[in-house]
């Protein structure tokens, strides 16, 4: 089996079947399971203690900083893939270029590091 664009057909089919597969339990289980909800059962679970306030509280913005750094690095990583695959066909100049690229990326990493953006608390 060679790599072939046509193989995506199998992926599409796989997606369909996997979706079906994921839904089968959800469809089957109601047939055999009980269903008698009550308010206590449906209350938000916090180890049995009465819930205080809404679940909307202010979360630590550090989460977002992680996501931010992640996005940037993700994009940069993606840019590396074509280079990696084409590496055998590229000359030393491309190596230098990529070194520059990764160097810039490293500057970002060092910055984030020094700014304590990568520290949890």
């Amino acid at each position, binding site marked *: 089996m060679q*790599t072939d*664009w*046509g193989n*995506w*057909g199998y*992926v*599409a089919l796989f997606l369909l079947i996997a979706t079906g597969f994921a839904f089968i339990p959800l469809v089957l289980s109601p047939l055999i399971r009980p269903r008698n909800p009550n308010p206590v059962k449906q209350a938000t679970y916090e180890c049995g203690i009465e819930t205080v306030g*809404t*679940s*909307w509280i*202010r*979360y630590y*913005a550090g*989460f*977002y*900083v992680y*996501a*931010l*750094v*992640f*996005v*940037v690095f*993700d*994009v*940069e990583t*993606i*840019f590396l*893939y*074509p*280079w*990696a*695959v*084409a*590496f055998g*066909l*590229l000359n030393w*100049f*491309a190596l230098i*270029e*990529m070194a*520059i*690229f990764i160097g*810039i*990326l490293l*500057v*970002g990493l060092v*910055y*984030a590091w020094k*700014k304590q*953006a990568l520290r949890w608390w």
Partner: protein
Amino acid sequence: MNADSYVAIAFWILAIGMVLAAYAVVALPRIIHSALALVLFFFQIAGLYVLLRAEFIAAVQVIIYVGAVTVLFLFAIMLTNRSYAPDSNPANRQWIAAGVVSLGLLGTLLATLGRQTWPTGGQVPANATVLLGQLMLGPFILPFEIAAILLLVAMVGAIVIARES
């Protein structure tokens, strides 16, 4: 049933799905639902790229948009909004005018497209990823490096802005 038919079926499924998803992004009353519709939209666009034989772009689409940008959006929503409110994604006062302008733009675009004919006969090479690598490190090296700097600047800026001082 040849390859073209499969492509056509896939296209129409994806096209309808994408338009619906895009509409859902705009129309759903809860911002988080909009964001999830956006995820669906991104995913379908990846499918569209596969149809266009841009497999690498499709993968990038999923990795960047579904895996990264969406997370950013979801985090932002969860960090800022009272996202559980039933009307967290309302329209503003100018929605009618916005609709008119959008429809006008659509009409303009469609009219322009309708008058335009395109040359045919394009072929995407099989080893597209390798060629992309050669292109990006060859003629497009400058945008490539600038993209790196842009991302660096974006990261630095975003960290400075987002951090709680």
